[in-house]
């Protein structure tokens, strides 16, 4: 099965890294195939940041996301800019502290979107005490809400990606994120 994931936020949130970690988890540790891409160019400057991952059991031919099954929005700008082609009944995960839910009420209803809220930034700051791990917190939420990658693969991919010495904090963050979704 082919699954298309999109993550959007603003520069500095580690959005791209989340995409890479998901891709790595799927392709190196879950035995699937994955292609990760991201936005380049002026639009990627300062403001909005975006990454996309395609995951599949089969070899992946067309490598780009055409209409995501899953969209994670970590900022209001990203939410509004990138939401439109989310699939009917797709999954949308938002950081409720950074986006204005009112603006998407109709969208969610019309498209029968499965909406999840994961206050990743707040959790990172308050629970882990490290704002920069917000993306890993969100990773936990993504894994729980979507199951695109397994928990084990996710953890291995995180350990493979974060700086030495920060492993524990990151696993903690992942688990805190995992716990954010009921």
């Amino acid at each position, binding site marked *: 099965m082919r699954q298309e994931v999109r993550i959007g936020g603003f520069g500095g949130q580690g959005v791209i890294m989340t995409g890479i970690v998901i*891709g790595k988890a799927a392709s190196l540790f879950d035995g699937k195939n994955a292609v*990760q891409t991201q936005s380049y160019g002026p639009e*990627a400057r300062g403001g909005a940041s975006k990454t996309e991952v395609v995951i599949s059991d089969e070899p*992946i*031919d*067309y490598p780009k996301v055409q209409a995501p099954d899953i969209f994670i929005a970590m900022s209001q700008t990203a939410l509004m800019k990138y939401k439109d082609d989310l699939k009917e009944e797709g999954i949308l995960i938002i950081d409720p502290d950074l986006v204005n839910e009112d603006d998407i009420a109709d969208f969610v209803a019309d498209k029968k979107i499965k909406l999840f809220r994961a206050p990743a930034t707040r959790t990172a700051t308050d629970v882990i005490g490290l704002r920069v791990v917000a993306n890993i917190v969100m990773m936990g939420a993504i894994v729980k809400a979507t199951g695109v990658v397994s928990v084990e693969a996710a953890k291995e991919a995180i350990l493979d990606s974060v700086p030495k010495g920060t492993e524990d904090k990151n696993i903690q963050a992942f688990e805190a994120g995992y716990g954010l979704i009921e």
Partner: protein
Amino acid sequence: MVEERFVLGNEACALGAIAAGCRFFAGYPITPSTEIAENMSVLLPKNGGSFVQMEDEIASAGAIIGASWSGVKSMTATSGPGISLMQENIGYGVITETPIVIINVQRGSPSTGQPTMSSQSDMMQARWGSHGDYETIALSPSSVQEFFDFTIKAFNLAEEYRVPVLVMSDEVVGHMREKLIIPDSVDIVKRVRPELEEGEQYLPYDAPENGVTPMPAFGDGFNVHVTGLTHDKRGYPDTNDAETHTDLVERLCDKILKNKDKICSYKEEFCDDAEIVVVSYGSPYRSVLTAVKEAREEGIKVGSLKIDTPWPFPDEEISKLAENATDFIMPEMNLGQMVHELERVAGKDANVHLIGKIGGVLHTPEEILEKIKEVASKKED
């Protein structure tokens, strides 16, 4: 030990270069090729090699030719404007028969164009961009793994035929991450010094049968003179003699033309009974396969020819396919470039259809499928 990584296409290219024995990189940053230079700047010192960021692309091309003559395999990487600037020195590499590898991660063009978008619009430039008659070897990867593999292959071909080899990648392949499998050892072609019989006069450009003369390094004691001027077998300038020039330039071209069967590489899928063949190279291939499979499901006799080496163009294979096929479809991320070759080879016997697409977005499988269907339905008429 086989290693698996999840890396950017451009990083795979750098890893391939290192695996192939590249120990010198000179470059100048340009989107979307920059990550190749960046990765080489990290990797080379860890492998005994040198990375030099040059003042521009002209200098980069010059430096890798110089380095090649010093006895190390060398490479540069660039895009659009940068590759245009290298044209003069590419011609110098050709006439001096210097093994070098040049990576072009193609972007939207002409001019500064669309720096962060993809394209395949430098394919004809790869063949004709430098002044004068010459032939080119160019490879086009369609995946991260191929970017690694083809970079190694490029080094091997460069050494085998003593030519600059181009890897004509594109932004899609350069800028996506996929799993890369790095084998614990790769086949590489090592350089071989000339061997002289006793008392034999050394003629650095006296080519054997296959047109390729062995190549010493500077400092090996052969006292070779290397020049971009038309030169005789001793390597000495001889610029007013028609015969010297004809012999030299024809040999340079023949090295490639006469070894086409060894150089050309391609992959056929579903071609045995194909009446329609989709011919592609580089990233559009990714959409081709999906489209071909779907068309097959709908009963259309369509196959895929995926060309690894757009240059030299695999005439023979295409001609063979044209015996059965009535139609060829070629998706290109340009307004029609390699399709000229396809027309040249297959045009007499079959219909050739271009799906040219510019603007930076890859063909979707649907677009290709649609064309297959259109062609198939016209055939029924």
